[in-house]
């Protein structure tokens, strides 16, 4: 559980295709730099993010999981992000019961035009996970 400054966290990001994935691309075209610790996965909507996928990510070696969606009201599918908004707090309480720090899962809203904000979110989350240290590996989750 060392919070050593040498520790490079592994972070999984679930990015929704319409807002946050596009925002991440914008950060790229704008050449904004952020830590390379996050590996992005594209989903059509943050509502697709099943909590069991988040658990698998943590079980398989992720030290932190970022879920990024559209701002409430702007979801391309109207309410997908509202469902995510309800699921994540429930997921966090389950994590606590597993003995996993709920701060290792973060839900943020990033719009398609917020390249700078995307980079900031990734940077801040990376540093927070770095401070928390590596995640204890759980051998099997269904």
């Amino acid at each position, binding site marked *: 559980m060392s919070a050593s400054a040498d520790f490079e966290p592994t972070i999984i990001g679930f990015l929704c295709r319409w807002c946050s994935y596009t925002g991440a691309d914008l950060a790229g075209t704008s*050449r904004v730099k952020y830590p390379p610790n996050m590996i992005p996965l594209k989903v059509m909507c943050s509502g697709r993010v099943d909590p069991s996928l988040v658990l698998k990510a943590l079980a398989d070696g992720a030290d932190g999981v970022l879920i990024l969606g559209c701002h409430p009201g702007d979801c391309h599918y109207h309410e997908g992000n509202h469902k995510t908004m309800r699921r994540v707090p429930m997921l966090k309480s389950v994590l606590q019961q597993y003995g996993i720090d709920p701060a290792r899962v973060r839900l943020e809203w990033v719009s398609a*035009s917020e390249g700078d904000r995307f980079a900031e979110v990734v940077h801040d989350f990376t540093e927070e996970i770095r401070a928390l240290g590596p995640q204890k590996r759980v051998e099997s989750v269904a």
Partner: protein
Amino acid sequence: MDTSKGNGHGASSDGEIRVGVYVCHCGTNIAATVDVAEVVRFAEGLPNVAVAKDYQFMCSEPGQELIQQDITEHKLNRVVVAACSPLMHEPTFRRACAEAGLNPFLFQMANIREQCSWVTTDKPRATEKAKHIVRAAVSRVALHAELQVREVPVNERVLIIGGGIAGIEAALQIADAGKPVILVEREPSIGGRMATFDKTFPTLDCAACILTPKMVSAGQHRNIDIRSYAEVASVSGHVGQFQVSIRRNRRYVDDKKCNGCGLCYQECPAIVSPKSRKVSIEGQPYFVGSYAEGGEARKVTIRQGDRERRKPIKDTPTGDCIFCGKCATACSEVVGAHAIVLRRDESAEAGKQRSLEFNGNCIGCGACVRECPTGALTVTDAQDRQVLHHEMMLGPNKAIRVPTLQAVPNVPFIDEETCIHFRNGGCGHCAEVCPQEAISYDMEEAIEEVEVGSILVATGFDTIDLAPMVQYGWGRYDNVISGLEFEILCHASGSTGGKILKADGTPPKSVAILHCIGSRDEHYHEHCSRVCCMYSLKFAHLVREKVECDVYEFYIDIRAGGKGYEEFYKRLMREDVTFIRGKAAEVTNWPMSPEEEGKLVVKAEDTLLGQIRRAPVDMVILSPALQAREGAQTLAQTLGIGCGGEGFFLERHPKLAPVQTAADGVYVAGACQSPKDIPDSVAQGAAAAANILSLIDKGMFSIEPVVAVIDETLCGGCRTCINMCPYSALSADEERNVAVCESALCKGCGTCVATCPAGAIQQQGYTDAQIRAELEGALGRLAASSAE
């Protein structure tokens, strides 16, 4: 999901997965940061990879051919391209695969540019990240299945929201091509902002002269249906088949019967300016009937004249009341307010037998003013201003009116706030005189449902609210006006006939024009509003031409980038306009010297002189920032498109797709996308029209088949998913006790998939198995980790 039927070569008929991995250099965009050769070597060692190569530009023809040859030669049945974002080139490579006989959905893109090489400076770490991303893609693609695109027919009817110059241009192009257009405009007439301008830069063309022919063409075109005084209430459906509800506001005039004769507004007794108020009582030695609700009061005053020397009517100088009583008659019989009563007292001395009595029933309609033969009754506002800069109109200033005399459609509307009938039940004159019987006070709002295949948003801009910027005095001092207000002041159809006048009705002797009010300003809007430098020069020219007084331009930079714009600037410099390089900090009416008495003083730092300057002037014109329309965000949500940071509608790509949006079938043009001048708005309108005609010409649109599919053997009939779907694509089959998905309605968000406790619903292209494989590849958990 039958994977045994192949499209051609390499379909997984023998069960063996053979992946081709292609890593793009993208010139130096990727290769300068990511060690491409190392990624290729790494990919070669991954499970199922049959071939791994790199190339300079995968999206080029040779790049695509490389993939196609390998599909045949190496019997590939899966392809991964590690390059730019899938949002950029996924369609390109899918097409390449399809042309080589491989189902296009057996392809996965790995984004190692926008989300890797461009955002990392540390080369070894960028290369490691690229490897993880490639391994994730290779792991995922093995579980891809053949999918078929859904093709939907495209309805050829087009909806255009906004009847300004961009919308009109697009409507004409599309209609000339023979396709039907429905043009929805919120105001009672099309024409937009351009209809309020007097001249346009840099040619100084009369705006109406170049706009009205287009407006008339649009109004008369057999393929264009104009719905004015209407708004889009809701939109559902998808590209090719949108269902739109249009709400038509209460005009009170039937546009099918009205022939535009104009008798109604000629006869209307209610003289108004745009902001009428309700009645209140105020006692004055001269009768003051005023109406005010918070804010400014409007007075109707009567000057009673010298009663001792009352003269016969023909010699009465204009402006004296002759006690004819016409005002009283109008007030009682037409208006029904009975605010003025003519009293006759036979016992009084000669010359004083008639008197007028006033009570507090005045509703400020102005009917008495219209009837008065001598002009004794006038309408002014509470400060006795004659020219109300903030409330000028371009058409007849009556309660029933057309916005301008060139309105298209040429059908009036009734302004309920100022109409006597709606205020106190009286009058009703217009309905009586209308020869077509087109006026009905009972008209209701109407909802019209239409089906269209594509939508163009061309709703234009608003200007920033100047009232909170107290340092400039708009709304506090007389004669401080905004750019749009100055356009109307100069307009030939305005109440001054195009004369530039101060609020007291006299011409100014000096005018200051202040650039960048709210633009290029971190407190308001960071962006440059693009058109203000040019219209400020145009204003300077108009002032010099019409009034010949001193003109001062307070600027930061002069932005004159368009065709003929720099030459126009040079011309203005020769017209004796004084340019002061320094954004104005303040406009004040506190004089600090005798020559500042009674003037507005503009204070600015003259950065070229290095001094603070105070310029006393008679009139100040502010160039306000252009911003997104109020309600733009709501419209964006209705249409499923986004807004950028500044509130303007978000284009798909600022350079390569400026008129498309993230939503297929929805396009954007004109100033609602970003501040721009008329030539650019017209160009974007035409560009959007070309896009739309191309869509209609194809006749079909391919929708990604990322729909939800239910495995009924796993579904337990719990119905948890049913209410999750925002499109009502899921329903319960009562008999079999399972959920059923109507794939034509499914838009592929995947929310139901995440909801299902049994895992019975999967999303094609985003199945749990595929995402889990992607995670394992990203995190290196599988046997793949032995490749590290």
